């Protein structure tokens, strides 16, 4: 915050506090907001799981090609 003369500082601070309180009162929707957040987290998680399940197919590297085969029992 800027260094304001006391009068403006007090007035704008009081207004800001009450504006926040008024919004909180008008829109008491934390549950709706939290549901939105939970859905987004689930969506993100599922995308990660999908990406893990279907990794992009890469051609085998030369090192892998050179790996000796397991001896047969």
């Amino acid at each position, binding site marked *: *915050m*800027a260094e*304001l003369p006391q*009068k*403006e500082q*007090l*007035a*704008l*601070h*009081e*207004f*800001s506090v*009450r*504006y*926040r*309180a*008024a*919004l*909180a*009162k*008008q*829109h008491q*929707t*934390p549950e*709706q*907001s*939290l549901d*939105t*957040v*939970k*859905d*987004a*987290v*689930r*969506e*993100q*998680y599922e995308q990660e799981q999908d990406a893990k399940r279907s990794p992009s197919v890469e051609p085998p590297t030369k090192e892998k090609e050179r790996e000796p085969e397991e001896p047969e029992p």
Partner: protein
Amino acid sequence: MDDLIKLVRTYRLTAGLAERIRLAEEIFRRIEPDLRVFVFSSVSHDAAKDALQEVLKAVAISLKQFKGDTVKEFWAWCYRIARNKLSDHFRQQYADRMQTMPPEELWQMMETTAQNAPMSPAVRHDLDYAIKLLTAAKPDCSDLLWRHYVIGLDYAEIAEERNLSYDNARMKIGRCLDEAKSLVS
């Protein structure tokens, strides 16, 4: 370290869904009120409810990608996402908000708080003065004052938002306040 950043860091490292949801709930209980003020101060109130949900969703989806280490960086990151979301999807409503709410509507909002926090004559006088300061200036100045003194964005955040240097943002806000004071007095 701030608790909020601890939660965000833990969230980034958490693999299990149930634990992520628990942490996300804790994080968003803390940040939702400030994001709500930001959104309701940035778009018209008609659109703000939907806009808030879009912003919360965008922040939640990107939470694992946050790279910073401080609470200040985290808030700057949240506001950046919010701004991008609002300017992409709520451009018209953003333009509407630039026309400051009329004093009568602001007073109506103030009156709703009187039940929990009674208004003495001195408080009414302060609120009247604040509303005059916020509504007297030209729209651009009024918006700057609003973002700094009501939402609580600091100079650096406003500088980023307006593509200004830190000092330019600071001086512009100072000039806007002087302008508002001269118009009110």
